[in-house]
């Protein structure tokens, strides 16, 4: 920690980590209902627990991104955050909206549009909070009057994410149009603008963790985000095959989405090369694990497993089966959960002034391997479930309910590996808690903050 106001990030990270743990609890709860029977049917049925699971995911990832911005922007622009008060107020509002949303779901108040279930007034609240956030960040950069490419990509990603939230506010009576614009939020987020955030956070971490040269890093950063948009924008069409729009989407969606893995592979190759060429120059091995892990897992979960079902000829059979669940879990975890965990573990020692114990803690490494192996196992279990389901239900023509009975064994595997994953989350939370509260001043953290030592000058 070099600037006093980077401490703000700690509180965002704290919220993110707690919401992450809660997300996983609701994941396990939802899965238990798959195994059935469900003693909570009348109280909290699957639709409720599942919506809580996925919404918490979105909320904690965004919380992490905003925390990351409050940490990265001072570093990159070499200045204090414009208004710390506004940043804390924003966090308070954001969490209030989150809590009200989740409690509302438990009482059945929902708009029921997958991943965008939040009731309309609360969505407006999200827009306000995003506005406050962007204002604060932009004023900071303006005040400093200097910015780097890395930070521009990060802020560009966050600002576009806010902009692309607008279709979520629109209502269509025509179900085809309802679907069409839902994907502007969901797909253009995770396979478009969020990838900018991912790429920028990855670049930031690589520059700090390795001895990589910023000029080279940022040159390739443009290639990555260029590839992302060239493939990802028209790639939205891979969700338009069967919703009642003209046939040309089969071609446009198939072709461009098939190019999407390029950006993800490029990111993995980029991380690998930077570290191989420039070597590791930083003691925070936990953060290094998460950084590389994220590059690898997003390439497998998004690039390979996404590609596996993106052609219309395949997608017509697998569409809406556990193949989607398999891909969704590994891709989301690899791309957006892991990069958040990376920046959190990177920033934590500096924020709390306890660098050494935390940056190399055995517990932190355990948390990494437990989560990674748990998620890998979950992906395998879901792949088995998805392939079997596709074959029995979609190709042979067994009924849905009969098929579900026949794939129960894969749900047991999902549960087993899910528990391993959850253990890793527990370890992570405990390790986070052990680090204690943030220090009051930069001086306190400077004594131990490795982040300061490894700094490479901003442009």
């Amino acid at each position: 920690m070099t600037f006093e106001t980077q401490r703000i990030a700690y509180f965002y990270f704290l919220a993110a980590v707690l919401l992450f743990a809660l997300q996983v609890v609701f994941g396990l709860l939802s899965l238990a209902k798959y195994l059935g029977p469900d003693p909570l049917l009348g109280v909290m049925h699957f639709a409720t627990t599942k919506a809580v699971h996925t919404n918490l995911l979105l909320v904690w990832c965004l919380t992490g991104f905003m925390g990351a911005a409050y940490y990265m922007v001072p570093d990159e622009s070499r200045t204090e955050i414009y208004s710390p008060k506004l940043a804390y107020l924003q966090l308070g509002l954001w969490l209030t909206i989150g809590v009200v949303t989740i409690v509302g779901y438990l009482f059945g108040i929902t708009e029921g549009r997958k991943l965008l279930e939040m009731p309309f007034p609360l969505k407006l609240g999200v827009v306000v909070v995003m506005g406050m956030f962007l204002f604060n960040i932009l004023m900071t950069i303006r005040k400093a009057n200097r910015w780097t490419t890395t930070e521009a990509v990060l802020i560009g990603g966050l600002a576009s994410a806010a902009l692309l939230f607008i279709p979520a506010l629109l209502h269509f009576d025509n179900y085809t149009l309802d679907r069409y614009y839902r994907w502007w939020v969901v797909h253009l987020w995770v396979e478009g603008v969020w990838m900018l955030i991912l790429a920028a956070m990855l670049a930031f971490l690589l520059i700090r963790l390795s001895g990589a040269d910023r000029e080279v890093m940022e040159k390739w950063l443009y290639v990555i985000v260029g590839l992302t948009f060239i493939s990802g924008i028209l790639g939205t069409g891979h969700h338009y095959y069967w919703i009642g729009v003209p046939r040309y989407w089969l071609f446009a969606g198939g072709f461009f989405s098939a190019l999407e893995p390029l950006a993800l592979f490029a990111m993995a190759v980029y991380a690998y090369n930077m570290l191989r060429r420039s070597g590791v120059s930083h003691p925070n091995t936990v953060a290094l694990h998460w950084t590389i892990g994220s590059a690898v897992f997003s390439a497998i979960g998004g690039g390979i497993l996404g590609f596996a079902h993106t052609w219309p000829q395949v997608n017509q059979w697998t569409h809406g089966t556990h193949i989607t669940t398999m891909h969704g879990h590994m891709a989301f975890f690899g791309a957006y959960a892991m990069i958040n965990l990376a920046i959190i573990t990177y920033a934590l020692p500096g924020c709390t002034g306890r660098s050494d114990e935390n940056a190399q803690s055995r517990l932190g490494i355990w948390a990494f391997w437990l989560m990674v192996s748990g998620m890998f196992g979950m992906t395998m279990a879901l792949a088995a479930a998805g392939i079997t389901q596709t074959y029995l239900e979609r190709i042979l023509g067994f009924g849905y309910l009969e098929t579900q009975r026949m794939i129960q064994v894969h749900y047991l595997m999902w549960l087993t590996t899910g528990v391993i994953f959850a253990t890793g989350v527990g370890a992570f939370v405990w390790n986070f808690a052990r680090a204690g509260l943030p220090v009051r001043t930069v001086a306190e953290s400077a004594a131990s903050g490795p982040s300061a030592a490894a700094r490479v000058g901003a442009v």
Partner: protein
Amino acid sequence: MTKADTRRFFVLGTLLCTVAFIVLTVDSHRTVVAREHSRALGDDVRRGLRVWGVYNCENCHTLLGEGSYYAPDLTQIVAQRGVPYLQAFLADPSAFYSEEEHRRLMPTLGLSAQEIDDAIAFLGWVGGIDTLGWPPRPIRVSGMPTRLPGTETASAASDPVTQGRQVFDATGCGACHSLEPGVMLVGPSLAGIARRAEERVQDAAYTGSAQDAEGYLRESIFEPSAFLAPPAGKHGTADGLSYMPGIYTNTLDPQAADELVAYLLTLQ
């Protein structure tokens, strides 16, 4: 390659693709809206979409293959099940399924009669969307496969019985009728239906107007409520109406109907 080059690549690539995306969006949007003229969005359909949202159906079910995977896809459900059955089901799912048997059950959501009708209107409208042939084979809520792929023989392709079997599959009779003896889906199993049809018309309890097995089958298909086959019980009927949809007069052409009946007559 310099940083300025790669930046140009990013800016130009993004710009081009965004423009292409917007052009395609304008065209798609217009096409979709134009199709509304031939398939009007009634008020019930509009309200039905809200019912679908407010009760969070999408976080259990898929529709057009999108949603959640805890409950069956409902894209073709109205064509498969017909309105009376769905009305009864949505009012009380537990009358039709049990948690013991399937390990999961749709909760009784407390929809009003109006909401049920709206939801069905909405689902029916969605069922009419041109999905470019998705799903390639029907997805059914429950039942065993009616036929394993690859087991048809080419020589039998012109045989009316074989054709009738195809009509049976294509029309979706298998959604409600199993061909395994004793397996009750929504309707009774059709194993041995030829023999039973013969017995039915001679039975004193029979109140329909058919004279022979073939006539009985035709009546069952075209006027399902003319005679309610026992032991349908709560599974098959409500208020003297069969849950079997009365749509086949319109959807089956005479030749297909002949073939279907010829096929059913082989189920001794």
